[in-house]
């Protein structure tokens, strides 16, 4: 993830934008656009629609920045804007052009990038057989994620990918902390059971 980790803090950047420095908004865009894009892609499953949704969400963030009160992090606030934008887009677009997440590498093909798996994972190279296995696992995960209820899926994503704490997830989704824990537990159990059923992971001994 190529986030701009250096530079002014979110708070400083927001303060500068509100003082009239439009370019300071770039810091926020570059810092969060990858996460925002992946979130939109997970919901919309369409590259163009995801790109549009993220762009719209950032424009809304720009216009509404004066109302951002700093009660939550900027990303939590942006997350809601992106999510709302995606849900609006999904309501508007009933064309069914969405593809399943990673269905046969459809996303990679749609982006015009090589659908072959990476030559290494966690720094460990692996051969063609392992690559096939890995691809199957990825597709299995995609299908298992697909089968999860949206609420469980987003909770899991906020924890595992965005690295948010239970309290932050609770604030982001507007649910109690206990619900975060149970949704995570449910999502993980479902994923593992599905992967076990598909023979993609082995059962604990």
């Amino acid at each position: 993830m190529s986030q701009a980790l250096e530079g002014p803090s979110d708070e400083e950047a927001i303060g500068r934008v509100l003082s009239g420095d439009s370019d300071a908004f770039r810091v926020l865009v570059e810092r969060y656009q990858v996460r925002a894009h992946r979130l939109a892609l997970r919901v919309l499953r369409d590259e163009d629609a995801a790109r549009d949704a993220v762009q719209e969400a950032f424009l809304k963030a720009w216009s509404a920045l004066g109302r951002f009160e700093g009660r939550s992090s900027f990303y939590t606030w942006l997350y809601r804007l992106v999510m709302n934008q995606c849900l609006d887009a999904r309501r508007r677009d009933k064309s069914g052009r969405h593809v399943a997440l990673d269905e046969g590498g459809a996303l990679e093909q749609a982006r015009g990038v090589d659908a072959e798996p990476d030559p290494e994972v966690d720094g460990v190279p692996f051969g063609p057989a392992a690559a096939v296995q890995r691809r199957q696992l990825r597709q299995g995960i995609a299908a298992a994620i697909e089968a999860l209820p949206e609420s469980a899926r987003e909770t899991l994503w906020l924890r595992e990918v965005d690295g948010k704490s239970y309290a932050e997830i609770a604030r982001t989704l507007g649910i109690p902390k206990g619900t975060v824990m149970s949704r995570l537990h449910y999502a993980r159990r479902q994923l593992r059971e599905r992967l076990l059923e598909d023979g993609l992971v082995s059962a604990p001994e």
Partner: protein
Amino acid sequence: MRREDRRLLDLQAYHDGELSGLRRFFVARRIARDPAARRELLALRALGRELRSFDARLGEGDPALWSALRDQLPTQRRPAAEGSARRPRFGMRAAGWLGAGLAAAAAVAVALAVLPNPGDLSPPGSLRWLRSDGYPAVVLQDDREATIIWVLEGSDNAGALEKSKQRPEGPAGPAGTTGPVRPISPADLFGRAGGALA
């Protein structure tokens, strides 16, 4: 909740870094002793790795996003703070904590009372600093209708007000005793007689 569910939730919370102190210690000890718990933890970690790896394959976003946005920003409503109330609250939050720390360090509570003017005390707008038996107070003669009094109440002089008001026993305790700091009401200050503080 079943014991097994509790155990799994604890492991999950451990994996997510949500446990602290003794609970973390006990779960860590169980993981060290119980191979099944260890396998469960490894499975959680592996699943997390797979999800992050899967997410990374969803792409790096739109490198041209800023260029596209920059062209559109001038046509959008310019963001602006609506006075100081619309500025982010980070500064206020920090100032609040600093203030709270200072207040705690000084062991002083400030009670504010807006009182009907009991009489012709001072000209409107005048400020008086009072000290009665070590009990400091600031009196602002707001106008002919009201007097605003800030009473600085410390634990070592709680009750002094009662003495100054010549009340035999007040809510803060008898004169000269210590007691919990609490806001002071107009009745506490002026008693039933409604007389002047000074």
